[in-house]
């Protein structure tokens, strides 16, 4: 917990402040610290999670504070980490494993899909899998290959998994604490490009379920999650200059998706653009678009637009700004929806 600027809540003598400004990294670290303190069965592990505190310092200081039985390094093998999680869960623990980067979840997919997602079912409910898998996700940090991937469409398709992604420090704190309290497996996708952004965390005001209206608006709904939410908020500001009142819906839960929130928002705005970093084809944007179309077919003024990454491998740093939906591409998407006219 070095380098934090807020008062660690649980150590405070004086009554803890209700709102503290901190980075997402700090909010996640604090959430994990509290989970370890509150739940003796919670264990954290992965590559470099212990002494180093994780390459992103999300587990910083936790081993020193809670001991090596609670927070430990594993050998460098993701299938091993996730397979081990299954066994720990069977033994009554609440594992909170980390894969170091999104792209290194692939070696563990067999354990995630065939074991974590199915053990509760296979065992007829006798072996729950309360596993919270933390995955630093999405791109935008000019990192090497396989360090900027968006796996939400894959995870959301897997029966037996729940999937969530925070976009603010406040949500990071509340969603992680909530996920780590669930008896079912949750994939927790952390937008790594947002780790160092600060924001207020309201300790008393957690609303960890469903989607969140990040900004209200009347003309059009932008649906996004993770790092794309703040970009959509920027876009909304720019659009406002042209008199376009954009609503931004932070989906948060990518499985199950809050279909009611989608219906509510687009029922009002009658136009929608989904934004994500993952490739277009068979991305989660298709599911979101189809859910919107199903519920708002009669009132939709234009087909739902998707502004997404392309059907290409996530490119090297020099090209990532071309790949990730940028402000212009989102504005073009908005324009297409607003200018759509039935033949």
């Amino acid at each position, binding site marked *: 917990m070095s380098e934090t600027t807020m008062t660690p809540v649980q150590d405070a003598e004086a009554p803890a402040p209700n709102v503290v400004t901190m980075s997402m990294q700090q909010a996640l670290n604090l959430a994990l610290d509290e989970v370890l303190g509150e739940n003796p069965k919670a*264990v954290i592990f992965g590559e470099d999670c212990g002494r180093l505190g994780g390459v992103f310092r999300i587990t910083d200081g936790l081993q020193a504070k809670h001991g090596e*039985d609670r927070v430990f390094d*594993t*050998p460098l*093998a993701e*299938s*091993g980490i*996730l*397979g*081990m*999680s*299954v*066994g*720990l*869960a*069977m*033994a*009554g*623990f609440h*594992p909170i494993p980390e894969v170091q980067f999104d792209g290194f979840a692939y070696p563990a997919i*067999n*354990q995630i899909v*065939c*074991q974590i997602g199915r*053990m*509760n*079912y*296979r*065992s*007829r*409910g*006798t*072996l*729950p899998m*309360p596993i919270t898998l933390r995955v630093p996700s999405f791109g935008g940090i000019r990192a090497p290959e396989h360090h900027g991937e968006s796996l939400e469409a894959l995870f959301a398709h897997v*029966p*037996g998994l*729940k999937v969530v992604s925070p976009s603010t420090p406040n949500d990071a704190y509340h969603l992680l604490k909530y996920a780590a309290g*669930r*008896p*079912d497996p949750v994939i927790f996708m952390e937008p790594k490009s947002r780790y160092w952004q600060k924001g207020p965390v309201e300790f008393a005001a957690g609303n960890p379920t469903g989607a969140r209206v990040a900004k209200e608006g009347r003309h059009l709904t932008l649906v996004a999650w993770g790092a794309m939410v703040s970009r959509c908020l920027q876009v909304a500001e720019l659009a406002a200059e042209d008199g376009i009142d954009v609503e931004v819906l932070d989906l948060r839960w990518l499985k*199950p*998706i809050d*279909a009611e929130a989608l219906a509510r928002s687009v029922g009002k705005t009658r136009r929608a653009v989904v934004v994500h970093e993952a490739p277009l084809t068979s991305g989660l944007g298709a599911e979101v678009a189809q859910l919107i179309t199903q519920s708002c077919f009669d009132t939709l003024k234009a087909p739902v637009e998707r502004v997404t990454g392309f059907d290409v491998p996530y490119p090297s740093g020099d090209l990532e700004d071309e790949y990730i939906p940028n402000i212009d591409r989102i504005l073009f998407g908005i324009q297409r929806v607003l200018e759509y006219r039935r033949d």
Partner: protein
Amino acid sequence: MTTHPVLSGGDVAPAPLTHEQLRELYALMSAVRRLDTAAVAWQRQGIIPGYAPELGQEAAQVGSGYAVDRTRDFVFPTYREMGVAKAMGLDMVGYMSTHKATWHGGMYNPLESRFAPIQAVVAGSVLHAVGWAHGQTLGGHTDSGVAVTYFGDGASSQGDVHEAMNFAAVMKAPVVFFVQNNGWAISVPTERQVAGGSVAARAAGYGIPSLQVDGNDVVAVYQATQSALAHCRSGNGPVVIEAMTYRRGPHSTADDPGRYRTLEEERLAAGEDPLERFKQRLLAEGVADEAFFAEAQRAAEEEAEAIRTGIEELGPRPGAEMFSMVFQEPTPDLQSQATAWREESEHV
């Protein structure tokens, strides 16, 4: 046939098996043989859609399963461990229901049975054993429960087995890696599968002690498992046991071994039937007489019959379980799928 391990399991050598225990072992093997043979017949009769016989592996399975301490150990099977299940006293209707296509993992309670759900991914549960075992050591528990994971010579080729052995050795997790080397992975013989020729020989590379044991000698298997369990329990980390045996039957009822091995090859490689061999030993040592064997046979037949009735009476599971078993906390979208399914399908 044993190799060069240094197992340390406390001061006391495990007590030799009593005559009663020896007879119990035989009765178990006999029950397993009978059920195994019956299940193949049931498949031919259309009672069950498929089955993976363990013919020839009764000693390896019953001997090891018999050594497990059901008060604290936990077994992680693959799909061919019917003999282990029987030796551990599982609800065999619940076990066999997987082959009836009732429920993939079986209908027994894995927590109460100390026997994880049946696993169709080869090597899929080897890492689970490591995680479970590591959990036993957290908080400084001693004299802990041991995880016993069963897998085959074919499964040993999977990367997960390597990761599991390395994790277990690094963490000193109490795991017995129990390999049934039955000579075949479907059509591929061990020599085209296991480079170096032995899974046990791999253990040394991780600093793990190993035992290669005659998998057709039930007492040898029992003793090897006992000493491995004692070694693990005392905090010495994992052990690899490789039980050398032979898959006498087809891979499964869908398989046609004639395509890859001759009957003559089978006969030569299979060696003596582990059941017959044990019987001769019990007779020679005066532990059991023909009346005992006849009674064991009768009981086995009766039990197999009861299991057949049991799985037939089980009937199909209600379709609603497709939805209700997925999560501990159901999700609204899944609930509405369940509703739609009920409306559209249940009255069909």
